C-alpha cells in the first residue's frame, strides 16, 4: 500500500563512501536491512506463538496490533543481542584479534618476525 503523502527518503548532503568499491557500501546496507527484516519476522513469529499459548485468536488484526509489554521486550532484547552477535561475528572476531595484539603489544607481522628470527 502506498501512503498518500511520501516523505523525503534521503537526507540532503553527500553520503560518505566508506569502501573503495561503492558496491560494498550498498551490499553492507542491504545486509543490515535484511538482518533487520529477519528480526521483524522473528518477532512476528514470537507474537503468533504467544497468542497461541494464551489461547487467543491468531488473526492478522491480533498479530498486527500486538505491542509487547516489558517482560516480552526484555526477552526480545536478549534474543536480538544474541542474533546481532551471530550476524556481526566476523567483526567481533577481528576485534578479539586486535585486543590480543594490543595486549601483547605484538602484531601478526611481529609474530612472524619473532618466529623467523
Amino acid at each position, binding site marked *: 500500500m502506498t501512503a498518500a*503523502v511520501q516523505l523525503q527518503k534521503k537526507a540532503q548532503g553527500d553520503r560518505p563512501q566508506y569502501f573503495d568499491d561503492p558496491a560494498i557500501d550498498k551490499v553492507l546496507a542491504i545486509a543490515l536491512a535484511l*538482518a533487520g527484516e529477519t528480526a*521483524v519476522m522473528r518477532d*512476528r513469529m514470537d507474537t503468533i506463538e504467544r497468542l497461541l499459548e494464551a*489461547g487467543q485468536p491468531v488473526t492478522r488484526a491480533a498479530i498486527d496490533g*500486538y505491542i509487547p*509489554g*516489558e517482560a516480552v521486550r526484555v526477552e526480545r532484547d536478549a534474543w536480538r543481542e544474541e542474533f*546481532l552477535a551471530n550476524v556481526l561475528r566476523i567483526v*567481533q572476531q577481528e576485534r578479539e584479534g586486535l585486543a590480543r595484539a594490543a595486549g601483547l603489544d605484538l602484531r601478526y607481522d611481529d609474530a612472524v618476525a619473532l618466529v623467523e628470527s
Partner: protein
Amino acid sequence: MTEIPNSIDTSLTAQLTHGILPQPTSDEFARQEFVKSLKYHLATQISPGNKEALAARAAPAFAKAKGHPPETMEDVRSAMRDEPYFTFWSALQRNSQEMMWKSVQIPVERQLPELISRARTIEDASGSLDLDPALPIPTYHRAVDIHCLPGGYHSEFTADDVANGACYDRAVYLYAMGRMGPLNSDIGDTTIAFIKERFPDFAPARILDLGCTVGHSTLPYCDAWPDAEVHGIDVGAPVLRYAHARAEALGKTVHFSQQNAEQTNFPDAHFDLIVSHILVHETSNKAVRKIMREAHRLLRPGGIVVHAETPPYRDLPAYDAFMLDWDTRNNNEPFWGASHGLKATDIAAETGFDPAHAFEAYQPSAFDAAQARRTAVFQGGDFGGAGAWWLWGVRKPA
C-alpha cells in the same frame, strides 16, 4: 500469558505513549526495536574495538611514520584515517542512523493524515502555537539535513504537516536508546537540576527554550517552575505543530512560536531564563554569537542563559575526543566539531555579557535509572550514554 496487546506502558524501558505519538503496528515496532538493539550492540560490542585497533595497528603505524605516538585528537584522526576496523564500524554506524529514520518514517507515513487531523483539532488548548510561514530557514539548516533526518526540521510534505515532528519524537527515543527516559526529557531535566543547584534562589517567571523542536526538553520546565510562563521557539513548522499537540496531550502549557533564535520578536528584558538543549552544535560560529547577543537583549538583569551539549574536546582524552567527533563527517553535523571548541568566557565577552559571570559545568543525567544502560563514555553513535551533560552559559548581573 498476561500480555495485553496495546496496553499503556508506563515502564522506564519504553517511550511514554501520548496522544500524538504515532502508533506502530507490531512489525513497525519490531523494526524500530531492531535499530535500537543494533545501535546498542554497536556502542557496547563493536565501537570499543576502535580503541584496540588504535593500540594494535594504527598507533604503531603512526609512530613508525612520525617518530612519536599519536598524542592529540588530530594525531588520532590521522592514525585512524585508513584503519579498516574504524572504517567498517563507521559504515555500520552510518547505516544504523539511516535505518533509524526509515523505521520511524514508515508508521508516520501510514498515519500522517490522522496525525495531522489530531494536531489540527486540539480543543481548549492551554498553550499556543504561532507560525510564521515567511520565516527564512537558516542556510546552515538547508545546506544538509542535520543528523540525516530527511527534510530536516523544516521541510513540509503536505499542508499542516507534522511528519518530521512525529519522526523526530520517536527517533530521539531510539537514538538515545531510551536512556533519556520515557519522555526523552533527560537533557531538560538535567539542565534544570544544574540551575537549581547552582542558583538555589533563582525563580524564573518567564522561560524561553531555543530550538525546542518537539518540546521534549521544554516540558520539564513547566513542572520545575509551575508558575512560570514557558515559551519554545524553533525554525521548523512541522516540529512546532507536533510540539504543540504533544504538550497539550501531556497537559503542559507552553507557547510555541516559529522564530529564529538569532533574532526573535520578543521585547527587551522579557525573560529570566533562556535555555537550549543540543541546539548550539546545529548552528554555526556566526549564528551562536548572534544567538548569544539576542539572549543578552532578551534577558532581564539577573537572568541566566544555559546551553546543554556534549563536552568540548579540550576536556577529553585525545581518543575520546576523536570518537565524539565522528558525527562531524559521518552524521551530517557540520558544526559538531567546531562547536566543541567553544569557550563560555570567550563567547560571553564577545556578545555583551561579563565573562566573569560565564560558567562551564558537568551535570549528571537526571534520568539515572538502571534501565538507562549507560556506557559511561562520550562517543559517536552513543548519544546519552555517558550519563552527564555539559552545560555552559552566563548570568547577567542583577
